[in-house]
């Protein structure tokens, strides 16, 4: 029998790619966290000698047209990317889940109002909405967090509402009522775990989108302040020098790709790990 497998209790283990993604992300996170310690140069220090220096022993990833060390700038850029991703997705997760959850559980006109707001937000393309908010508020880091947060709020609201609606009439909720569970116990024991899976998966995937959106907005000049070494800004600065100094655009691009890819790997792994049915198929 497969019984011995079932009690392994290590949900991510059958997903080596997700584990790899998690390891790389943890590494990137540590690098970002300790950027001031690790970075070989000051990311803002100009150096006349190093202008457009190619990757080499002095500057591992090369330097830009003002002689600033690209590796140091990428490390500091990671701080910005992770900062924006975590805060904006946290914002979207909190507000979206609360609004969607209440709408689903209470129903009635509250549900109507929330759902229509969500529909309106959904009808505007993500990047356009974020651009509009940034254009209205002005390009600063906090505004960027707010803009990306607003853009991703409706996704969480919709997921939470759908999941709660599904659960509200589930037979096992009725069964829980019939054994004498209190409403608070039902919310905690049955509704929350039921919606947690899809939310966790969506959170992980949203990190990837938030990093992409931050890069895109910064690339377009409506992200963080232009003197900040965000990945999008590095990409933007590199695009004009592609023929003379490919490294200025390619390494930030690789950093974005790697991070987004890893978040997606972890998200997919989590989706499988959190679904008991998929878990069964893998083991069978």
């Amino acid at each position, binding site marked *: 029998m497969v019984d011995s497998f*079932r009690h392994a209790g290590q949900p991510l283990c059958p997903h080596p790619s997700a584990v790899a993604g998690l390891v790389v992300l943890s590494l990137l996170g540590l690098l970002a966290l300790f950027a001031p310690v690790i970075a070989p140069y000051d990311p803002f220090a100009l150096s006349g000698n190093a202008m457009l220096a190619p990757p080499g022993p002095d500057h591992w990833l090369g330097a830009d047209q003002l002689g600033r060390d690209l590796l140091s700038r990428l490390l500091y850029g990671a701080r910005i990317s992770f900062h924006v991703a975590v805060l904006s997705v946290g914002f979207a997760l909190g507000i979206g889940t609360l609004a969607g959850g209440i709408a689903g559980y209470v129903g009635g006109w509250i549900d109507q109002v929330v759902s229509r707001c969500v529909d309106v937000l959904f009808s505007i393309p993500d990047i356009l909405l974020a651009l509009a908010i940034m254009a209205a508020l002005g390009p600063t880091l906090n505004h960027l967090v707010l803009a990306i947060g607003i853009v991703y709020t409706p996704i969480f609201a919709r997921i939470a509402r759908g999941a709660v609606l599904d659960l509200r009439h589930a*037979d096992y909720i009725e*069964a829980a*009522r019939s*054994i*004498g569970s209190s409403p608070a116990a039902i919310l905690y024991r049955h509704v929350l775990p039921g919606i947690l899976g899809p939310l966790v998966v969506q959170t992980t995937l949203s990190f990837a989108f938030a990093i992409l959106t931050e890069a895109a907005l910064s690339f377009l000049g409506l992200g963080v302040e232009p003197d900040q070494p965000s990945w999008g800004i590095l990409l933007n600065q590199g695009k004009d020098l592609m023929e003379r100094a490919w490294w200025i655009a390619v390494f930030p691009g690789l950093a974005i790709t790697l991070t987004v890819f890893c978040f997606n790997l972890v998200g997919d792994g989590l989706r499988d790990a959190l679904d*008991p049915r998929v878990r069964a198929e893998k083991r069978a």
Partner: protein
Amino acid sequence: MTRRSPREFEPEKSRPPALLSVDGLRVSLRSRTRMLPAVQEVSFSMQRGEILALVGESGCGKSLTAQALLGLVGKNSLGQVEGSIRFKDRELTDLSEREMRAIRGREIAWVSQDPMTSLNPVYPVGAQIAEVPWLHQLCRTRNQARGVAERWMDRVGIPDPALRARDYPFAFSGGMRQRLVISMGLSGEPDLIIADEPTTALDVTIQAQILDLLHDLRAQTGCAILLITHDLGVVAQWCDAAMVMYAGRIVEKAPVGELLANPTHPYTQNLLASVPTPGHRRPLQPIPGQAPALEDIPSRGCPFRERCALARAACEVHMPDLVGSAVHRVACWDREVKA
């Protein structure tokens, strides 16, 4: 209206006080415009250890009656419950939601219709069964509660309960899941189990196993079982007495042997005539028409008159009372005239 002859008022044999006695239960559901009477004038009582069947077509108010007993309708804006439900000398309709919660699962348990969906897919089954003794403080620790759950899984015939308790619901077949749901119902050691069509979702062979199980558990624990079903075969084989329900009213009530040998209400007769008997090739007689939808139940007169071959003028005007001997009662004008 003919009056009942005095000899039909034989005092019931002195019995111990009833476990459950329902008197004049009415459940109304709120529609957009008015309150719709979904269950009307339902009265019955149950003794400890009795298996009572509640029979009727879909939508006739069987499940709603059961939900009213558990206090799961009427406490919200959607419905309203009137009448008296006395359970072990307490009036359930007077209890607060908090007091009802202490009764649900502990004193009155519910075994639901669909074992495939009434277990939460994200928890191991043992933990879900253990919830009942834990919630009702029959155990001091979660571990003890798990032990209780495993004992009940063993008693309902789940092999290797200690190991299987850690499995998730998807790993069980339909019959096994219904056993789990039953063990969940029993683990609070209730005095009354309401089994709402516990075998509808199962194969016929599994059905017999589950009903045998309920029968055995009744013998072991002495609990009473209110078995909601539309299957007269189930009634004949496993129940002590039966109530036939039509459009929210009880139209006939009798011990099972008596009901099958001597069905009196035309609806009961029709029901029995529409069930095939193995070995007998006789044409089945479907009941013409269909049971009225909730909003179409006539506000006066007998709700069955439209489908009844014996309908007469009186049926249009008044709903007949449930009358007869102490054991066999029927609500039909035809029967009253004959008596």
